[in-house]
């Protein structure tokens, strides 16, 4: 297996130019996601979805703009991958999470399973789509299209360990410069999804950017769920038996 690679997205230098969104669409041939004017911000794509694999959020705050290019987190423990009944979602040799569109049968289970609300089913072809971390480019030894296109190097691609070190250093520098609100999001292997393959430097709480503050892979509780269901199954069997015993003539 190759080294685990991923994204470090440093939102403190994002200028909201959307070059990443466009480059992703062009390289991956992602269709139009409908051009909506939301009347809330300059954000016209709104959220990650089947046809938006990079999404630039625009947060308007008192005296400043926060911009953040969001993407699939390529979780260490990926709920989407766990729950997929067909095996369409798989983990690549780069430790990223990819959907094989020819295997996906559009059951839609991965969609509500993702704790970050990333993956979605496309209306017209009925299949699930999301960022592949440009699997085809990685195999060809290239970096993902979004990182390549980003003019400010807000999106950095590389081996995850290296990115983590770079990110720590960047946070320290920002703190030294007085930007005390700078923090990393998703980089810790101890978090609820075992760390993400795409992590971020944020300048405010995650929820400000539409990110969950403390996501958990939904399948963490699955053994307990099967136990509760087993209990309910036993109760059902006992209930049925009781109905027959009580009414025995």
């Amino acid at each position: 297996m190759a080294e685990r690679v991923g994204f470090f997205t440093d939102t403190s230098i994002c200028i909201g130019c959307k070059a990443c969104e466009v480059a992703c669409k062009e390289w991956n041939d992602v269709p139009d996601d409908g051009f909506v004017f939301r009347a809330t911000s300059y954000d016209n794509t709104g959220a990650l979805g089947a046809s938006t694999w990079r999404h630039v959020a625009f947060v308007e705050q008192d005296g400043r703009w926060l911009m953040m290019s969001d993407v699939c987190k390529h979780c260490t423990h990926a709920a989407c991958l766990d729950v997929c009944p067909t095996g369409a979602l798989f983990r690549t040799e780069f430790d990223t999470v990819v959907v094989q569109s020819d295997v996906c049968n559009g059951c839609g289970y991965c969609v509500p399973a993702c704790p970050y609300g990333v993956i979605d089913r496309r209306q017209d072809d009925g299949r699930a789509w999301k960022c592949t971390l440009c699997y085809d480019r990685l195999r060809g030894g290239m970096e993902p299209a979004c990182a390549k296109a980003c003019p400010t190097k807000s999106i950095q691609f590389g081996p995850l360990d290296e990115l983590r070190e770079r990110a720590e250093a960047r946070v320290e520098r920002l703190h030294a410069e007085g930007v005390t609100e700078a923090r990393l999001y998703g980089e810790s292997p101890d978090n609820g999804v075992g760390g993400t393959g795409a992590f971020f430097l944020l300048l405010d709480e995650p929820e400000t950017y539409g990110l969950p503050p403390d996501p958990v892979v939904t399948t963490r509780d699955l053994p307990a769920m099967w136990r509760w269901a087993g209990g309910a199954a036993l109760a059902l069997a006992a209930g049925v038996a009781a109905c027959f015993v009580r009414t025995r003539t």
Partner: protein
Amino acid sequence: MPRRRDEMVPDAEFRSYYGQPVVKRPIWHEPHMPAYLYLGGLSGAAGAMAAAARLTGRDRLELAARMAAFAGAGAGTVFLVAELGRPMRFLNMLRVFKFTSPMSVGSWTLAAHSGLTGIAVGSAVTGLLPLAGGTASVASGLSGVAMATYTAVLLADTAVPAWHEGRRELPFLFSGSALASAGAALMLTTPRAQAAPARAAAAAGAMAEIVAGGLLERRLGLVGEPYRRGRAGRLMRASRVLTLGGGLLATVAGRSRALTALSGLAITAGALCTRFGVLEAGRASAEDPRYTVVPQRERVDAGRPASVPGR
């Protein structure tokens, strides 16, 4: 799992990205998904009742239960396939078996249960292979209890707050509702002399459904709100009234045809309302970022964020 605080979180300032959802809402359709959940439950509990009827020698009740179990599984499969779009997509799921995917486990459970109930009915109708038919009838008791409860795990194993946090109560809500549904169907289709267990099942299942539903809404605190508000709230309340009325009626219906019919219809309508209500509550809880963000924020602020799975 730490206990959630009982009092409702006030309409506190919570931050979100222009009020947009954090998690994606389930894309499953109406009436396909709730109808499948209802029919699966009906079929599963009817399978269990067929087994019990066989073991206690109630042949007419067993025949009715075999029929109901088969009809429920068959109609349920039709709704499931309609949800997926094409039959091939259901077969596609049987290429793999994954314990981490309740949908994979469920597809196999449905396939096994349909097969067993099919054999049981086929044998009953044609009179052929009675031994195989009887064995299948008893075995459908096992596949049935799995069938009636796995759907709760299917919903709970998502990031949808109202479902994920309801992972303890949902299986009991669904199995209670399944027992009531099967009881309702069987007391309508069995000669009255043998229908006593069906009436008991209708009444007992209805009570279990109401108790589990009440616990669900209460224990979840803030995240239980979607079960009480809006369309989901109306459906859950209608379900409670219909189920309670139908259940009580089942205990006094005795041999009155009219009362039995009324009770059976009320319970069936109540069970359907439960499924539509649970689907709707899930949607509502995914659409409002409050239900995702607030509990997670509280966890972080209290200094006990989620840790790596398996630790």
